[in-house]
């Protein structure tokens, strides 16, 4: 990334990455999440029809975290053409690193009344392993959340992109990576609680983790993180960097011949994506109250891809919409018709790839275009670009598939 002659200040360019209508939507969403939700949850009595239950807060907060992951996924898949089947790993790593802090915050209130986390007492460990050093400091935990998954992603990505592993090969290798990590975390000796992972959290920064106020704050933080992620992603993809990234997705060799080194572009967006996932994971764990190795299961990581596919690849808001659609459907199905959930999810995978290549957002745009009202240039240009993209991808993939 060469620093472009930045005449317009960064903050202005950041502001310009959304148009007026999008800013309005973002503002409405922020007002809802930061003002309306706390009021409706804390002040209104439970009998009031407008009262938001704890269930609502936890579920929506959880999905907000998923939405961050979906946007991170959309960045690398929708714009970079890199399908990662290992994003669950970074999400879980973020959760684990923050979970370490939450475990230390339990203090002596665990079942064994020891300074050590319960599972270590259970394993008869006498002192904390070295990588738990400093985990009782909130800021250190936040730092770890930002650094550890990003570092792992950077190292892995460097070697993978350097040897030009791409397409399905890359997907499979990331799948193997998260699978290996899952096996590793399942072991008690790894020092992260084995099968059970971390749970029974009591406090965060001294506040009770189950208190309604804490929940509302965590919910608000998740909403802010999602807005920040969207803004950052939008800024990136509309910048020169984003255009080069898209070019690499569509014709990597040509970009190379022009003189760019795709390695650094891919590596940057890959590491950033992992970092966003880790933040989402760190926000997710205190809200859900548990983190265990099954978060790294292969199936979970593939599900992330389907959120993006359902919402619409290459449309950042689509990723958010997809995450909400799929996860709301999941929580409805698993309560009402648990035996049909896999049928639904399986069908969703097939339908969204066969008939909805641009997802819900693409469908909406097609319907709008069908009405003959090409409102302004931006939404009209996007489907066109998407079609051209699909064609190039198809041509490239045909070559690779031989």
């Amino acid at each position, binding site marked *: 990334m060469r620093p472009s002659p930045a005449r317009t200040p960064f903050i202005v360019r950041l502001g310009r990455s959304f148009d007026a209508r999008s800013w309005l939507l973002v503002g409405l969403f922020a007002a809802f999440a930061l003002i309306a939700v706390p009021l409706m949850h804390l002040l209104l009595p439970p009998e009031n029809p407008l009262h938001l239950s704890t269930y609502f807060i936890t579920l929506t907060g959880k999905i907000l975290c998923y939405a961050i992951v979906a946007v991170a996924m959309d960045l690398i898949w929708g714009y970079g053409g890199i399908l990662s089947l290992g994003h669950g790993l970074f999400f879980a790593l973020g959760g684990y690193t923050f979970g370490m802090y939450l475990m230390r915050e339990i203090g002596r209130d665990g079942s064994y009344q020891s300074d050590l986390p319960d599972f270590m007492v259970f394993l008869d460990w006498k002192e904390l392993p070295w990588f738990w050093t400093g985990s009782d400091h909130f800021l250190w935990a936040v730092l770890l959340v930002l650094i550890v998954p990003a570092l792992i992603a950077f190292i892995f990505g460097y070697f993978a992109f350097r040897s030009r592993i791409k397409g*399905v090969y890359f997907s499979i290798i990331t799948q193997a990576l998260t699978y290996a990590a899952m096996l590793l975390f399942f072991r008690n000796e790894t020092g992260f609680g084995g099968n059970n992972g971390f749970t029974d959290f009591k406090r965060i920064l001294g506040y009770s983790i189950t208190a309604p106020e804490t929940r509302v704050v965590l919910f608000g933080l998740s909403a802010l993180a999602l807005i920040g992620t969207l803004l950052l992603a939008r800024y990136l993809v509309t910048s020169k960097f984003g255009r080069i990234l898209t070019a690499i997705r569509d014709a990597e060799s040509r970009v190379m011949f022009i003189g760019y080194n795709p390695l650094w572009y891919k590596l940057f967006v890959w590491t950033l994506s992992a970092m966003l996932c880790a933040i989402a994971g760190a926000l997710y764990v205190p809200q859900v109250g548990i983190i265990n190795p099954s978060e790294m299961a292969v199936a979970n990581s593939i599900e992330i891809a389907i959120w993006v596919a359902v919402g619409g690849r290459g449309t950042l808001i689509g990723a958010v919409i997809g995450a909400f659609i799929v996860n709301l459907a999941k929580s409805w199905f698993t309560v009402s018709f648990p035996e*049909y959930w896999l049928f639904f999810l399986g069908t969703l995978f097939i339908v969204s790839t066969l008939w909805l290549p641009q997802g819900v957002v693409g469908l909406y745009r097609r319907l709008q275009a069908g009405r003959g009202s090409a409102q302004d240039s931006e939404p009209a240009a996007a489907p066109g670009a998407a079609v051209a993209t699909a064609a190039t991808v198809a041509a490239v993939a*045909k070559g690779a598939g031989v």
Partner: protein
Amino acid sequence: MRTIGFFVFGWLLSMSCALAAIDPALLRPLASDGNDAKIAAITALADGAQREALPVLKSMLKGSLALAGERVVIVDGQRVIDAATNSEIIPAPQVTESIGINNRLRRELASTLAALRLFSGDREIRWEAAQELASGADAELLPLLEKALASEADAEIKGTLQMAHAQASLGSGDALVRLAAVRLLGASGDPNVLQLLGPLTEKRAGNWIEPDSAVRAAAGTSIRAIENRLAFAENVGRAFTGVSLASILLLAALGLAITYGVMGVINMAHGELLMVGAYSAWAMQSVFQAYFPNLVDWYLLAAIPAGFLTAALVGVLMERVVIRHLYGRPLETLLATWGISLFLIQVARTVFGAQNVEVANPVWMAGAIEVMPNLLLPWNRIIIIGFSIAVLAAMWAILNLSRMGMFVRAVTQNRPMAGCVGVPTGRIDSMAFALGAGIAGLGGVALSQIANVGPDMGQGYIVDSFMVVVLGGVGQLAGAVWAALGLGVLTKFLEGWTGAVVAKIAVLVIIIIFIQKRPQGLFALKGRFVES
């Protein structure tokens, strides 16, 4: 249990009519006080009376031996039997004292009984008795063993007896006898012998347990020899389980290699095709149980075509309905096939239930070959290795000798060119997919014999079989074979050193590093290819 006991007893009684009476002087010491005296009495009785002593010692082991005055009798419910003549005493005398036994005596009696069985006329009984003694015999049995050795004609039994004799002689007071025994034991491959020899080379409270230095040295040599033999057997065993794992990986990966090679399609539902094959084996088993109960051992032969065809059918459906429409979009295909796999899992759960179903090994696959005491090669694994070799050979023949195989290779190498010269690439895709799915079905049939059959069984094999394909390179049978072998054997050897989970992680890391060096896999196709 009790009734059987009476029958056996009755049989012993009827047999005993032909036997001579035992000298009461040999019997009386059995009732003496103290373990040592009783053991001496048992040995003397066995040595002096051999076959006639059998019922007496068996009764003693059961605790039904008693003393009626000075006579040793066997109490059998209401009846009282004279131990010397083995005939019922009428009227039954008053039992004055029962002859108690403890664990030490029980052990002694058991091995003496085994030694006595060495004189049976039936070869099988002698063979079993010899094996029983070879895993632990006391010095008291030496005279009996020597007698048995002298009378034994069968070479196999004789060899086992010699080992038993050597073990028993370790307790001898004569250093030369011990030396000979230690040397002989060095030829054993039995891990139990190590525990026997081990103490001979150790010190207890500053003194050598074995006083004679020559015996100590010989024991050291023998221990090393046995350890070498055991280590060798262990390595052979590991290599065998590695090859066995490789055969499973190969069956799972062959189909995947074809579909990926021909169409560039990663079929995430491949594991579920294995599951389809395994369930067809189960279905065949049920059909045979219901309609051909006397042929039930051969259901597996019917399951092979059934598994192939069912899986191939599911594969063709998948290809026609979904995959065909996603050509040139490998990442979407990956997601769509994952959706299919979820769908198939739920179908299996709905139809067959979420629990595992039981698929039994046919009788001809049960059991194992014992190569060495610590090296067992199970028949089902051997047969599966053979089966996968047969499948491999069939695949090779189809790909290299048939017209369709030639087309498949052509499409794999250069799809547009193959299309230009008239290869019906669309139909070849369908056929290749059906073939790959069918082979997965065969893999499922094989898996049903060694693994649990349940709706989720396929999931565990996806990552592994992908690794085989990635490692082996695309569109190459040889690549898949070497990758499967390498992965299987490497995994099993690593498991031996580090445990299963770490081994798995290590293998995955090794693959990731390997891909760095050779992104095209072990065997890259040579020729002109369009690279993106």
